[in-house]
């Protein structure tokens, strides 16, 4: 009886090791730096990560199908540029501008999705193409110069007296997508397709539509993340989001998602994104220069993934 209880506890710990890593990291950070666990710093992390977390969630749904979307970073640039241009040059209400930016993101996502689902491209290849197309488009529409956004528009998203809307939106999105994954037939089918697409098709499900849709979702969430960044910087730029696709993939993997598809969780992916965020944050606080930061970050990703692999193995033999 006690033994089986122990096993149960052990399994719980293994299943939730992403949270454990995050907690551990949090404690270590608090010890390493006095400024880490202050309201100011925590708020900064939340503001910075609102965007990347959305991108990671978008990436997760693509990864769940066994695909990958390298275009998320470039689509962020689309979101940032489009929204900035609309409020500056066309004086469109900022909410309308955001909506149009999200639509633009969706178009790019669905474009990738069509290539993957209907033209049998591998996600890697299709999104590689979309990545350069989107980035190029962002540079073309902004003429390659950052677009300054006037006050009273997108900056509303980051105002303290509005309770930092981007943080609230990010939290709402986390909850929404966690529920969607667990409670909707769509979420269920996406995972099923990642496990065995052929079986799902033979069960009478149009797999191509679902496959296309996950890239659309990733596009929308990435564009929204781009808008967040534009709002924080008061500038829309075509250089936004460079390299963000790699952080998003890393977040999914640290969160226990399988790149082969069929396995992964929204909240754990968010924890994965926060692990990366804390690593970056503590190194900034300790004034580690940027290039060594990248090296250290790479090794920490390896360590986190190794832990996943090791615990997954022991999970199987238990």
């Amino acid at each position, binding site marked *: 009886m006690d033994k089986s209880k122990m096993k149960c506890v052990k399994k719980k710990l293994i299943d939730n090791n992403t949270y454990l890593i995050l907690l551990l990291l949090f404690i270590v950070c608090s010890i390493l730096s006095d400024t880490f666990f202050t309201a100011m710093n925590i708020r900064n992390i939340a503001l910075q990560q609102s965007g990347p977390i959305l991108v990671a969630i978008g990436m997760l749904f693509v990864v769940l199908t066994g695909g990958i979307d390298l275009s998320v970073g470039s689509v962020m640039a689309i979101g940032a540029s489009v929204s900035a241009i609309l409020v500056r040059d066309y004086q469109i209400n900022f909410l309308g501008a955001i909506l149009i930016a999200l639509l633009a993101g969706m178009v790019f996502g669905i474009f990738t999705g069509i290539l993957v689902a209907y033209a049998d491209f591998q996600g890697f290849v299709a999104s590689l193409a979309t990545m350069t197309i989107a980035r190029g488009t962002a540079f073309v529409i902004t003429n390659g110069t950052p677009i300054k956004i006037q006050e009273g528009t997108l900056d509303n998203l980051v105002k303290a007296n509005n309770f930092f809307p981007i943080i609230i939106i990010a939290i709402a999105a986390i909850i929404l997508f966690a529920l969607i994954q667990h409670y*909707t*037939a769509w979420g269920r*089918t996406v995972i*099923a397709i990642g496990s065995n697409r052929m*079986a799902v098709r*033979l*069960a009478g*499900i*149009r797999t191509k539509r679902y496959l296309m849709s996950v890239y659309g979702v990733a596009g929308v969430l990435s564009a929204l993340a781009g808008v967040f960044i534009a709002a924080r910087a008061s500038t829309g730029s075509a250089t936004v989001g460079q390299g963000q696709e790699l952080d998003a993939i890393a977040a999914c993997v640290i969160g226990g998602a399988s790149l082969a598809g*069929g396995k992964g969780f929204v909240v754990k992916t968010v924890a994965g994104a926060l692990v990366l965020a804390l690593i970056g944050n503590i190194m900034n606080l300790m004034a580690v220069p940027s290039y060594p930061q990248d090296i250290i970050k790479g090794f920490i990703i390896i360590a986190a993934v190794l832990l996943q692999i090791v615990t997954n193995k022991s999970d199987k033999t238990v």
Partner: protein
Amino acid sequence: MQDGYKIEMKDITKHFGGVKALNHVSLKIKKGEIHALIGENGAGKSTLMKILSGAYQKDEGQIFIDGKEVKITSPKDAKDLGIAVIYQEFMLAPDLTVAENISIDRLAATGALIDWRRLKKIAGDQLAKLGFNTIDPGTKVGNLSIAYQQIVEICKCLTRNADVIVFDEPTAVLTFTEIEKLFEIIRRLKAEGVSIIYISHRLDEIFELSDNITVLKDGGYVDTVPASSITKEILVSMMVGRTITQMFPKRNARIGEEILKVENLNAGTMVKDVSFTVRSGEILGFSGLVGAGRTETMRAVFGADKIDSGKVTYFGKEVHFKHPKEAVGSGFGFLPEDRKKQGLLLEQSIRINTTLASIHKVTNKLDIINHKREKKYVRELLEGINTKYGSAEDNADSLSGGNQQKVALAKWVFADCKCIVFDEPTRGVDVGAKTEIYKIMNKLAEEGVGIIMISSEMTEIIGMCDRVIVMRQGRVSGELNKELIEENALIKYAMGV
């Protein structure tokens, strides 16, 4: 010293978590013997063989080879001791040539570079020894038939000087003639002193081939008997505790109206001018050799493959299913032959697998799943068809073959299908689970479902079907009513003699 045994496994015990998969099981194999290992799925055959081949570690017990105790802690240990396993799924690289595959672990034995001439010679010599000079060592393995791939796998073992070869269900994927060829090879290996452990669910084969038979049941050792001193009936009762006459249960189905009518169907290169009908409550068999176009016919009707021409009438209406979704939407289900690749999501829960085809029965208008209702449905459904499982949240691959098949089948029961294709429904399923699957089919027929059963097992066709269509080379070569279904007629139509 153990006298005269090539291999002795003694008191082997193995746990998986709290489950005892093997409980003091023993197995003794003589040199140059064909030893059959039988038992229902889940009896522990595979686990025992995985311990022998180093894939699993035993918890307790000893293994002796030529009387000396050995430690097998990895597949490499087993290989070095001359033990080889030929699994159902071959361990071949399809894009490499026959020669490369045969020498895969010694590609560059003489230095850093590959000596292609040497590889080809090793492969060619070994193939010739088995009498397969027709296989060119330079062909890609992926281009060979399944039967030839199996030969390559056997050659691979032999060039490593294996003198103990385990065959795990080798005939499941072979045709009649190929099986004969395989048996010839196995007998020749035996004559050369190789010890063979032969795992199969096909009792006829076991009697034809083996010298001794070891029976396992529920992870325990039942007995080892000489094949010549025992009958099929006794063997079955040792395995399951019931007799073979009870294998095909009776059914009281009323054969009613015509559900499905297919006329002059052509699809791809494998389906030529096929016509047939299925009635409600009827079990229609599809017999024939592997590759006769039976599966392809059903896939085309189901909308999984394209139809070139022909007419399909379903419940009196002409239909063209262009996607499986349309077929499933009108209550037409398809249980594919390869449950691992096409039937199940092995790494998802039993619950998700069960409701896959008709999740909308448990969702509301907003597409939101009612988990409580779903769980209740799944529990009732799986209990109704006697599925043995721990929790519905366990992954499908935690189940034995028979129970996996029941879960794959439950999907179509849940979808309220009125016509279901069963493609090789009992392949790789043990005797006990077979009968249970037959019972489920009978029950469905009694409820008025029209059933099409594709099967390469003649006993099953004879025992279950109301009517049989035999296919040969993409065409219907014969049709037999219940009274006329017998082995000779089936073979005659299947082979075209």
